[in-house]
């Protein structure tokens, strides 16, 4: 099963980082690659099972379902319903863990999915770099200049 894993230390307390990423409908606000997003059926974005439909800046359209949201674990799990990437059974989790010695946040973003074997390497690389790493980098940049250590 192809797996993607990216992680990073964000120089801000976990509550601050969580408040940015918690809203399932807010990708355009904090990621560099999403142009617009809406929740289908006017559901609240923290309703488990809600679906976000968003458009990438490169034009691609993606629909994802919220499978789990935990304000206790600071985690969010979702699956892909439709995307131009050609993946199946795609489940991803974005999770924050507080760093008690230092006050920062450890952020990890991981996914598992199925795909044709010949596309595995390219997909792992593409998702890891262009989605997870780019998203985490944007988070890190967002908190870099605020003076948090």
């Amino acid at each position, binding site marked *: 099963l192809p797996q993607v894993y*990216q*992680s990073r*230390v964000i120089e801000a307390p976990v509550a601050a980082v969580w408040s940015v990423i918690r809203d399932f409908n807010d990708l355009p606000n904090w990621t560099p690659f999403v142009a617009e997003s809406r929740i289908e059926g006017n559901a609240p974005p923290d309703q488990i099972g809600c679906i976000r439909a968003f458009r990438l800046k490169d034009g691609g359209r993606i629909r994802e379902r919220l499978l789990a949201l935990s304000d206790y674990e600071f985690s969010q799990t979702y699956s892909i319903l439709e995307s131009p990437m050609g993946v199946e059974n795609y489940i991803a989790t974005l999770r924050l*863990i507080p760093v008690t010695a230092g006050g920062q946040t450890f952020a990890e973003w991981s996914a598992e999915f199925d795909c044709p074997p010949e596309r595995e390497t390219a997909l792992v690389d593409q998702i890891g770099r262009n989605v997870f790493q780019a998203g*985490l980098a944007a988070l890190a940049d967002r908190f870099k200049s605020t003076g948090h250590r």
Partner: protein
Amino acid sequence: MIRITRSAVLGAPVEQVWPLLRDFGGWHAWHAGLASSQVDRGAADAVGAVRRLRLRTGEHLREQLIALSDREMSGTWCLIEASNPLDPYVATLRLRRVTHGDCCFLEWRLQADGPLSRQSAAERFLGETLCDPAIAGLQGRFRSASLLSAGEKVDHVQREADEGSGRAAKFARPPIRPLGAPSLPSEEGIRPASHTGDQVMNSLAVVVERHGGPEVLRTTRVTVPPPGPGEVRLRHAFIGVNMIDVHGRAGEFGLGSLPAVPGMEGAGTIVDVGPGVAHLRAGDRVAYAGRPPGAYAEARSLPAAIAVPLPPDLDARMAAASLLKGITADLLLHDVHPLQPGELVLVHAAAGGLGLVLCGWAKALGATVIGVVSRDSKVDAAAAAGCAAVIVSSREDVAQAVREMTGGRGVDVVFDAIGRATFEASLASLAPSGHLVSFGQVSGRVSAGDVDRLASRSIRISSPNFAEFVDTPDTLRRRADRLFAILRTGRVRPVIDSVWPLPQAAEAHRRLESRDTIGSVLLSPEIG
């Protein structure tokens, strides 16, 4: 129910940190709260392994490994026996990869049952005595570059050294071996190829046959037998002369029964190694500090455990001038009084060999250092080492000067190697809740006196013993690595007062006792 969670970012990739954590019996090598750790029997990475921990605070614990995963990089263990009243706990440690950045993330979760009445005491013990020193030990060893403030460059260099690339790879570390594991090869008589034979070496040595003044130091010829099991034999390039040698010579302490060869510090080249020595070989440049005495000689044997391989960029002269002083400074500033940035520090004998190292290192850690020297000629040296201000004790009242410099507050910590003569001034120089670290007695023993009078200002007094803090080869190695790292930054610059031919050891002692020295006094069998 008690839950304790600790987490930290460590400045090294998981590949470097995990091997340390998965060695269930080797935690004393990095856990700052452990005096020793040892797996009772069997392999340290076998699920079911039982380890015995001795804490620096005195407690003993036995813990059993109940899960270990190299895939998750996690381990789980539980308490099975404790010397103090402690309810059973289960703890899990997990390491997570940080894909962006040269670091990793450590999580430690501990859960214990127990009545509410004992909860806060248990929480304090488990959190502050078990978890925090572990995190601190790992952070000290793997300091994250991104968290460094300007004053903490030290550990960054340490980290580079640890990564073992390029020249740093030459810091050949001895393999981590659980305490108590046999250090002898299974078959007696198997020796490393570097062993040169069983020849007895002849060596010039300085011997104390009776206690007394410098004149009792006599030069003679001795034989140095081949190294025994666990020993190395080395030829000295330089030998450090320390106050403890003077105390031993005078019959106060430190030398044992006579006749004896004094000296606790030296640097040179390994001639041959005894059975069971794996991390050193003939030709290695090493330095050592500590017992047993015997350094005042051309050649000697000593336990391999106290010898530290020298990095290529540190010459033997500098090593002999700084190892004992540097390791002492390290334990004083990191263990006896973990120095906080911004603290005010008073260092007596600031221009002495140890004093200069202590001042420079304290400043590098972010403290403001006030030095005390005995005469005006030493002021410049103390200032150059990093003192923000220097008090000359021959013409100034130390406590009064400290009060004036600190707006009446006093200092947070005093490092006092002088003893009786400075004890009162040191106490009077302290701020409320200040800490007097008394670690030498050049002027005579300090009497504890009336403890009650400390109470009015909540004063603490420590009287550390070098041996307590360098009790395993790993501890020694860690301290030496930290010393080499800070020497490399140039923030600590040992000064050499004088180098004497070995047969002139008596002159070297007179010089040291004169209190005229600025920096370290050395002997060398290679000059004169």
